[in-house]
């Protein structure tokens, strides 16, 4: 389980997170919604130790991320897949090399790596793109390769940073289906998004981040029935 406990972070004196507390239950997709710039991506990066919070703590499987040494942090990252907003594929490598990079780090042999690359590309329905470079792919395909790179490691958790932003409705639906399929494989998902259609589609639980804190968290039904005016305004898209 991932637990965020009073997480706080400021950049240049401007507080972005001001005490985020949230539990991400195992085996479900939890979606953090909130306006752009509300600190959703910062929250994800705190979980994998890419950003160090000013206060509070992140607990993953009982371990406090901020207290881990380099070796333990590397071990933790082996259990967490991260899908970046713009995919963050290595543009000097082919699709297959992008997916294989993390596997090589874990010491798998060439046959195992080839099999996992093939399997993960099959899951995201991109078989046959192994030799293509990221520049030859569309935005949606790149994001799917990003998911393939994450699931190839067979992680326990996957963190998705704005997985449907900038995609057409059909490709967004494909991404939603992928996130649900991944959850059905037993992977716990934490998604940050401001796309309410996608959030209600993939989320088992939804939490709204507002003014640096979790304004409300609950099941999909609870959020849909909320009477909180701020949450209502956001999910209905009212200005």
């Amino acid at each position, binding site marked *: 389980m991932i637990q965020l406990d009073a997480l706080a972070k400021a950049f240049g004196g401007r507080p972005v997170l001001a005490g985020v507390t949230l539990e991400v239950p195992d085996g479900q997709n939890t979606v953090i919604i909130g306006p752009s710039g509300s600190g959703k991506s910062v929250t994800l990066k705190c979980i*994998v130790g890419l950003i160090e919070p000013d206060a509070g703590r992140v607990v993953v499987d009982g371990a406090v991320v901020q207290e881990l040494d380099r070796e333990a942090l590397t071990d933790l990252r082996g259990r967490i897949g991260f899908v970046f*907003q713009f995919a963050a594929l290595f543009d000097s490598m082919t699709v297959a090399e992008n997916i294989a990079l993390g596997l090589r780090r874990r010491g798998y042999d060439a046959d195992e790596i080839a099999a996992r690359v093939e399997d993960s590309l099959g899951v995201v329905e991109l078989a046959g793109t192994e030799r293509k470079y990221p520049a030859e792919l569309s935005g949606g395909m790149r994001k799917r390769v990003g998911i393939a790179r994450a699931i190839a490691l067979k992680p326990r958790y996957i963190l998705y940073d704005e997985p449907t932003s900038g995609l057409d409705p059909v490709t967004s639906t494909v991404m939603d289906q992928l996130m649900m399929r991944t959850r059905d494989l037993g992977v716990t998902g934490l998604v940050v998004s401001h796309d309410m259609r996608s959030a209600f589609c993939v989320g088992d639980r939804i939490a709204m981040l507002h003014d640096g804190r979790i304004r409300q968290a609950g099941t999909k039904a609870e959020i849909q029935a909320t009477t909180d005016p701020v949450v209502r305004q956001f999910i209905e898209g009212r200005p």
Partner: protein
Amino acid sequence: MAARVSVRDGFVAYVGRQTLETARALADVRTWSPLLLAQMRHLGVDSVPIALFIAIFTGIVLSLLSSYIFTGAVPLYFVGALVGKTVMMELGPVLTGMALAGRVGASIAAELGTMKVTEQVDALETLAYDPNAYLVVPRVLAATLMFPVITAFAMFVGVTSGWITSVNLLDLSTPEFFKGLKQFYRFKDIWFGLVKSASFGAAVALMGCLRGLDAKSGAQGVGQSTTRAVVLGCEAILVLDAFWALVLL
């Protein structure tokens, strides 16, 4: 968790911390060793033409300049001595270093800066790679190893072009040129230049890496990092040049 230091914490602190991190990452041989040869080719072999171009014209100018200075005052065979000493000890390493600070430093800063702003560096970390071991160490090692090789070529070509110029444009024969060259030659002339150039390579690559990894978002941020990497690389060369002169001469 290791705290991240950025250039905003103070440049000296940032350079110090990152240099220590790079030294620590040297132990991660499994990560950087497969990347070293490709970097040696990219940063070293591909830089040979520009280094040789500079060396040719340095040799020509030095021989003409020394002839102009010596005529009527010093025997002309001293042209060989001045060309040899100057190319091997100073102009070969420094001019080659400066040229490569532009080519290598800019290339590294732009590449790593782009990786930084497109989150590829973050992606490396989430895949359990240490960016210092994967990105910084192979580049710094490659530059440290290849700068002396390129400088050695530049020394040879610079002296050769000085010799050809002396024979064809000055009233100097080949035996006279080599008489001057040999009379004042010490083996130290060569290793002094090569040691300097190795330190220049390390400094240029390190500045490129540090500036690239600290690039701010956007094309402008990458551009600024690239410019600063080149300026810092050139400044580091001049400081190291003075340092080695103080220590080894």
